[in-house]
């Protein structure tokens, strides 16, 4: 499994063919992604336009609404009085220049808002994803090896329960247990109120605190992280474990595993060298999808833990009909999603040579 095309001792002509194959594959994937992103801008734009909700009435006070001049000025300011295609063209050229508009609620640029809120979300999403992949792979492999025995049944039921639990309810339950009953965890937010936040470098409190060498602040931030990460991990582990289990079951059933057993390889070696390696390929795809669903899971979890991330920003934008913010968040999440998918596709080509060639 190397990153170079399958060349080996083949003549140079064949090696070139491998390279062009890879180049064509990569450029095709990138072209598809770009088209998709363009479609996403159209769609965010259309959703916001198609709705009967009126931005002026959502954002202006009652007295201001009674004054037609104020309303007209407001519409002119946001380009609401232009025909649709013109509005879209203005929007698209601005987006391509990195200008996502001004949030009607915060009064700041949407891009600036996103840069403020995204690190907070990443701070809980990345550790959750990492934990979920490690735990999900281990538990899924365990269940597959113990197929249809007690351990497998427990895992199956457990993951189904995990899938069926509302994230916001689970957040409340862990908050009740660890904050209210046991008193070992803070009630929410990123840092205790009496702590002066560390100097902002990455926007992730734990990293910034570590960079500043303030380990007491770091520890406080970790304590605040613990519960949201616990909830997000639980939900993602459920999805991943089920997938790893079925992927591994399929591999365990393959002829080459039987061959490995028949030639007397120790079971541990078979699992590590053959089952885990082959089974991990589909797991990568699902991890990409799971990361996207984890991002959307943060909408509800951030709400409970008062976590100032993209999820809260999205909710406030949606409930306030803050159009530029809604478009910005949708575009950002879609960008992350398509980027993750592109990454997965390319990684796939690296890991599984068959895909690169076909």
């Amino acid at each position, binding site marked *: 499994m190397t990153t170079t095309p399958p060349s080996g001792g083949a003549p140079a002509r064949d090696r070139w063919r491998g390279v062009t194959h890879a180049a064509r594959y990569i450029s095709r994937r990138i072209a598809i992604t770009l088209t998709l992103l363009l479609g996403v801008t159209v769609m965010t734009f259309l*959703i916001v336009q198609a709705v009967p909700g009126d931005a002026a009435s959502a954002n202006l006070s009652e007295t201001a609404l009674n004054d037609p001049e104020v309303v007209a000025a407001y519409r002119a300011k946001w380009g609401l009085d232009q025909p649709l295609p013109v509005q879209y063209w203005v929007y698209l050229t601005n987006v391509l220049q990195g200008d996502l508009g001004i949030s009607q609620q915060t009064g700041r640029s949407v891009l600036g808002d996103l840069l403020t809120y995204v690190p907070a979300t990443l701070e809980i999403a990345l550790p959750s994803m990492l934990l979920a992949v490690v735990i999900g792979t281990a538990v899924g492999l365990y269940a597959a090896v113990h197929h249809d025995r007690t351990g497998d049944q427990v895992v199956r039921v457990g993951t189904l329960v995990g*899938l*069926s*639990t509302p994230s916001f309810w689970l957040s*409340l339950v862990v908050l009740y247990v660890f904050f209210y009953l046991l008193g070992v965890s803070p009630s929410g937010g990123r840092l205790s109120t009496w702590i002066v936040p560390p100097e902002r470098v990455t926007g992730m409190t734990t990293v910034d605190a570590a960079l500043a060498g303030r380990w007491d602040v770091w520890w406080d931030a970790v304590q605040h992280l613990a519960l949201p990460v616990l909830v997000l991990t639980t939900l993602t582990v459920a999805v991943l474990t089920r997938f790893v289990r079925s992927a591994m079951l399929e591999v365990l059933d393959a002829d080459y595993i039987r061959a490995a057993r028949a030639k007397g390889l120790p079971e541990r070696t078979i699992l590590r060298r053959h089952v885990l390696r082959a089974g991990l390929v589909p797991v990568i795809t699902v991890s990409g999808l799971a990361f996207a669903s984890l991002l959307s899971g943060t909408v509800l979890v951030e709400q409970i833990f008062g976590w100032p991330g993209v999820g809260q920003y999205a909710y406030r934008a949606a409930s306030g009909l803050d159009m530029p913010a809604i478009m910005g968040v949708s575009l950002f*999440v879609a960008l992350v999603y398509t980027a993750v998918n592109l990454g997965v596709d390319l990684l796939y080509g690296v890991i599984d040579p068959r895909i690169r060639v076909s």
Partner: protein
Amino acid sequence: MSFEVQRPAPVPTDASGDVPEGPVDRRTARALGRRTWPQRLRVPSVHGIWRQPAVVVALVIVVGWLAVAAFATLIAPADPIAQSPDVYAAPSAAHPFGTDELGRDVLSRVLHGARLSLPLAFVIVLGSLAVGGLLGLVAGYLGRVADEVIMRVTDLFFAFPQIILAMAVSAAFGPSTRNAVLALILVSWPTYTRVIRSAVLSIRGSDYLAASRMLGVGPVTALRRDVVPNSVGPAVVLATLELGNAVLMLAALSFLGLGPRPPAPEWGAMIAGGSRDLSMWWVSVFPGLAILTVVLAFNVLGDALRDRLDPRHAKGLS
């Protein structure tokens, strides 16, 4: 070990000993020397699914909740929206699940909540199945441009996380039960399109469909007699799993204040009410358990159905 000879079943006769007229089962027909036709491709059956205890429990839970939804007015001890001065009463004999911040009986509200969540979940699933299934049939059966266009649109929808799209749409149209349902249909149809399309594609490539075409069966008849019946299995599996998902998503929207308007006893909204004061755990714990049991039951049923109906998962690969 006994060596019984398998004898053909005796030809059923009525009292007079005459051979029955009209269609008979295959064995009888063979015994009578009538011509038999090869049977149509067997759709995998759900036979024997009831032997799994988990499936029985799940079915009991679903039927139980459906009964609660049907008879909530008779079962519930109190009016679900009647307020009383007895606020935040802990669970007791008078109020088994306690009372909420307005003194309303939580048990009655949970029971009445089933009247909202279950029918709405069915509406969401049927709505997205109608839209998504139809588009999936068209994409898979017509192929070419129709397929390309429809699938690119589903790609677009998949690029948005469901909850964010649903949130934006239902907030934009104004929070109400109807708009929440419409928003959830809007975000969930692409899943059905993909599943139905791939089912149709696998049938379209099958030998027996080619055979029926050679026998002169027209495309519309083939669609009706072979393609649609054979996509029912995957559709049923998906719809069952999506019922649970619909309950979850509806509760999530209501939790955010984008579902049925208060004082409607919606489970997600009740959890949001309970989140205001953590010490009154009963206000949010019981509606949460209601959601958990309903969704879990649908997921167990969907899982078991998939093991039966989806050949790829036939060996218990869930």
